[in-house]
Structures are given as structure tokens and as C-alpha cells.
């Protein structure tokens, strides 16, 4: 069965590109328009991985990570930040919140897939 990955981003075009990349490589995709939407969906849906933006309305990426790590259903899933932010300070915050990795936009499909394969084992 295909693995299910959530993409959380307030940009529809970024979600579209992430979904396209994942689906072309055999993954199922669940989309969330922001951190809040993601947390609601993740409270009832088990996923294999989360790819999230940092700056989003309602709940941002760091809040989302903290919420997921504090929950039960998806507590231990790999979480990759996919953001335009490249500052090391922000990366440290992400790591402290529980992110597994950090990708600075724009990503290349092969790059994203390689990272997913690595973190999903």
C-alpha cells in the first residue's frame, strides 16, 4: 500500500507541486492549507510523513510540529520543513520543535523524493 504523506502549505501552487511530485512517485497525498487545518486532519488521520511550510496563517509550521509531537496518532512521524526561510537560527528552532529535516524552497522533485526515501527508510 502506498505511503500517505501530508503537505501543509498556504500556497496552493506549492501544494500542487508537492502533490504532483509525490503522486508521480507512488505516494498518496493529504493536503492542508495551514497549520490549523493540518492539526485537525492529523488528529484523526494517521500519515507516514509530514511536509510543512514555516510561515502559514493561523498556526505556523513550528506550531504545527509542536502540535503533532504533542499528539498521539502521528507523534513519531518524520517531519520535513519546506520553506523559503534559510536562516540557521530558524532551522535550530525547527529542530528544537521536532523537525526531522529542512528544505529551502525551491525544491527539485528528485531532491524531495531522495529526502523522503531517506527519512522513511
Amino acid at each position, binding site marked *: 500500500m502506498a505511503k500517505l504523506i501530508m503537505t501543509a*502549505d498556504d*500556497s*496552493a*501552487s*506549492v501544494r*500542487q*507541486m508537492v502533490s*504532483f*511530485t509525490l503522486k*508521480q512517485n507512488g505516494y498518496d497525498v493529504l493536503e492542508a492549507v495551514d497549520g490549523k487545518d493540518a492539526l485537525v486532519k492529523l488528529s484523526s488521520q494517521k500519515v507516514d510523513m509530514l511536509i510543512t511550510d*514555516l*510561515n502559514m496563517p493561523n498556526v505556523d509550521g513550528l506550531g504545527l510540529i509542536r502540535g503533532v509531537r504533542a499528539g498521539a496518532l502521528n507523534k513519531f512521524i518524520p517531519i520535513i520543513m519546506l*520553506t*523559503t*526561510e*534559510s536562516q*540557521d*537560527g530558524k*532551522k*535550530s528552532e*525547527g*529542530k528544537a520543535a521536532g*523537525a*526531522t*529535516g*529542512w*528544505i*529551502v*524552497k*525551491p*525544491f*527539485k*522533485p*528528485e*531532491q524531495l523524493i*531522495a*529526502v523522503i526515501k*531517506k*527519512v522513511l527508510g
Partner: protein
Amino acid sequence: MPSATPHITIPPVGSNSEKALAGWRSVITPSIDTLKKLAGTTEDEFLQIGAQMQDFYQRSQEITSMANRMVEAVSGPQAQTVVERLREMMGNMEAYLSSTRSQSHENCTMLERILELLDHLTEPLDGFQKMYKILRMLSTSTKIESSRLGELGLGFHTLAMDVEKLSHMVHEKSASIQGDRQMLADMIGDTLRTVRTSEADQDRELSTTLASASHTLEELVSVNDRCTSFATMISSISGEVSGNLSEVVASMQMHDMTRQQFEHIVEALECLAAKLQGFSAADHTNGDPHRLITETGDVCELQSAQLRHAASELCGAVRSIVDNLRDMAGKQARMTSETLSTTGITDSTTGGSFVGAISDDMGTVTAVLAKCTLADQEMSATLKKVADTMQEVTGFVTDIEDIGLEIDLIALNSQIKAAHTGREGAALGVLAEAIKRLSVDAVTQTSAVSEALLQINHVTERLFGEASQEREHLGAKVATMEEETEQILASLGTMNGELVSLLAALNGKVQTLTERIEEATGSMDAHERVASLTDEVMSRLDVIVREARELEPASTEFKDNLRHMEERYTMESERSIHESIARKRGIASAIVAPKDAAPEVPSSTDADSEFGDNVDLF
């Protein structure tokens, strides 16, 4: 960098400066509206491109898959099997041709030998004709002598009648044999001429066809070889197309990134507009006008630069999307063209291919084989007729031998009768002596004819027997070859059908992909609209910068004026532009810190670098 321009004395507030500040406010507000509009209007267009891109990718994958199937069709295991069977078939055909020619040569040699033997019959048969004349003469003489003797010669009259009867028999049998001999000679002569002519024609036709089929077979082998390396090329082109797609995916994200940049610019301008709005010329309570003019110049200069960069990034991204999509279509079209050329399918209108050509050749070969079989049947019929005729002629040998015996008996009888007659029958004794001599000659001639006929019969039987066996053997071979040819033709037909079908589908797919990409990229004008609107805003901001600098030159206040912006930046490019302008003012900005001074991110291992500079795995 400190300004080298002379310091311009600012007029007292309330005059030019106040007007300028108010004017800038009225310019910045619509610029903000324009930028807000920009940030919101391009998303649908990008989403549409994204949706089309999935369709292009799908089609591109199908084209690659079809190209691979086409290569597989002409170089895969099925094609390899056909090549092997064709090779074997060609070998069998050549062997068959050689066998039939060898057999035909032997048959002809035998027939020529029969002709020679038939010729040997001429002399003894001529002898029989002489014998016939002598017997007639002896019969007449015996009758005359018998009449002369009257009562005494009555027994000789019966003898004369026997001699006459014998002469007719000799004449009749020798004439029959002569007729058959001539008929056989004519038939064999005709057969030899026909065989030699048709053999030459068939040899020419079969050789030409086999050479053509052999050439096409070599083409098939060559296609096989080319396809082996071409499969790698397809894979490589497919990789390049994936590269194009990768670039498109990356470029598509620039929309979101520039949207963020536009939002940051809008925030900066809104902040400036608020300050300009709050400035009161009357009491100066909301700030120093000189400082505000400087800040306005700094903010507008920086945002103009940020906007220029953002617009340039977006335009570059759209161009990259257009170029990569067109390149993708071009590569697929080239790959298709190469595929058709490599697989030997060049006639796109009829789907003609070397497979069709080899099918035609094989069809011709089958027709020639059928002709060979027919010729063989005709030869068989001729040989049978020769054998039957010889069987008939052999029956005459007994008759001829009977004639010799008959003459001998008549001679003996006439000698006895002549002896009984005494001196009166002396003349009859002479006749009896002549008949006796004739009987000796008859035995000689009979033996010669009999021996010649037996030899002919022997040769004919052997010829017919051996030919029948060989014919059966070759007939079985032809049947096997025809069956095999039919199977190969069926395989080639299937292969050709698949190629033609793939060809049509492939051409259709490439054409549709090209048209759709052309249609999508042709209508892509987001970058032009963005460029037009951003040019407009940048022009306004640049005018403000120029006017502000004329009133208050740039200074190191830049750092303090724009410190609040540092926190808004999320992108490295934004920080770089900020730093670049700060450097122009002679300020060492701390926004973009040297790498060795950056806070340590306890993350990436050396192994993670395989993913690229923009990836860190913790």
C-alpha cells in the same frame, strides 16, 4: 557608500518638503494597491499551468513508454526469434534450391542418356524395315515358284502367306517402336528445353528474392543492434525530460516565493505610507521631516531593488517554465523521429517498414517455391509418361523376339518342304536358304532392339524411382518451408501491425503534446503583466528616491531606518539585496552574517550533502 553629491539645503518644512512628502504619499498608496493586486492575481494562472504540467508529464511518459515498446517490438525476444527463424528459413531455402537443382541436373542427365539410347534404336529399326522388304520379296518369289510347281508347290503357297504375314508384323511392330521412339525423343527434348528455361528463370527470381530477403534480414539485424544502444538513448532523453520537468517544478514555486517578496514590499511601503500619513507639517510631532525624507528615499530605493529582483525572478521562472516545456515537447518529437528512424519505420503515412518489405519478400519466396513445386510436378509427369511409354515399348520386345523365332521356324519349314519336293523344288530351296539367313539377321536385329529397349527401360525405371523418392523428400521440405513461411509471415504481420499501431499512436501523442504545450505556453503572459505593473511601481519609487535624495542625500541613517525590515525577510535573496544597498552606504550590515559566524545548526551530516545545498537533515 557616503554620498558624493553636494548637500542640498532642505527648504523649511511647509514648503517643498511638505509638498514632496504629501506627493509621495499619494504615489505610494496606489503602488501598494498595484502590488497587492499582483500578489493575488497570478496564482490561478500558475495553478492552471501546474494542472497542465501533470497532463504533459503523463503524455510524455506515455510517449517514452511507446518509444520503448516500439524498440522492444523490433529488437525484443519476439523479434530475435523471427530473425533466427528467418535465418534458418533462408538457409533451408538455399539448401532446397541447391537440392532441386542437383536433382534436376541428374534428371536431365538421365533424360539425355535416354535420348542417346533411343538413338541407338535407329539402326536396328532400319534393319527391320529392310527385313520387311526382303520378306515381301521372298513371299512374292515363293508364291511365283509355288504357282510354277502347281500341285507340287501347294505347301509353299501356305509358306508364302506366312512370310507375307510375318513381313506385315515386322513392319507394324518396327513402325510402332519407331513412332514411340520418336514421340519419346520429342517429349524428352521438349522437357529438357522447358526445364532449362524455367530453371534459369526460377533461379534468377529466387536468387533475387533471396538476396532481397537476405538484405532486409540484415537490416532487421542492424535495427536490432541499433535499438540496443537506442534504448539507452531513450532512457537518456527520458532523463533529460525529467530534468525539464524538475526545472518546471522548481520554477513553479517561484510564484509563491515572489508573492512573499511582494507581500514584504507591500508591508514596507504600508509602514512608510503610515509614517507619511502621520507626519504633521504643523507641529512636527510625528518626526523629523529631514529624517522622514531620508527614510522615504531609503525605503523606496530598497523596495524598488527588492521589487526589481522579485519581478526578475518571476519573469525568469515563467520563461524557464515556457522554455523547459517547449524543450520537453521538442525532445519528445526528436525522440519519436529518432525512434522511427532507428526502428526502420520512416513512412509515417503508410506505416511502411522493413518488416513490411521482408513480409513482401517472404511472400515472393513462397510464390517462387510454389513455382518450383509446380515445375517439379511437371517433371514428374514427364518422367511418368516416359516410364509408361517405355513399359508399353517393352511389350514390343517380346513381339520382336517372337518375330525372330517365327522367321526361324518359317525358314526351317521351308527347308524341309524344299527337301521333300526334290529337284523340282530346288528354287524353293534357295528361297528357304534366304529365309534362313534372314532369320539369323532377324535374331541379330531383334537382340539389338531388345537390348536397347531394355537399357532405356532400366534407366527410365531408375530415374523414375529415384526421382520419386527425392521428390517426396523435397516435397516434404517444401511443405515444411511453406508452413514455416506462413508462421513467420504471421509473426511479421503481428509485428508490423503493432509497429503501425504504435507509430500512429506515437505520432498522435507527440502532436497533441506539442500542440498543448504550445497552446499553454503561448497564452502564458503572467510574467508580462507582472513586468508591466512592477515597472510602473518601480518607476514611481525611483522618482520618489530621486526627489528624496535631492532633498536629503543618502546617509548612514539607512541602517537605523530599515532595521525593522530585517525581521521580515525570509529569503536569502532579500537579505542580500538589503546588504548590497547597505554596503553602498558604507554600512557593514549584520543581516547576512558570514557563514563562520552563523549559529550552529546541529544537523547535516556529510551524507546529507548528497541532497543539495538547500537540504539539512537533523
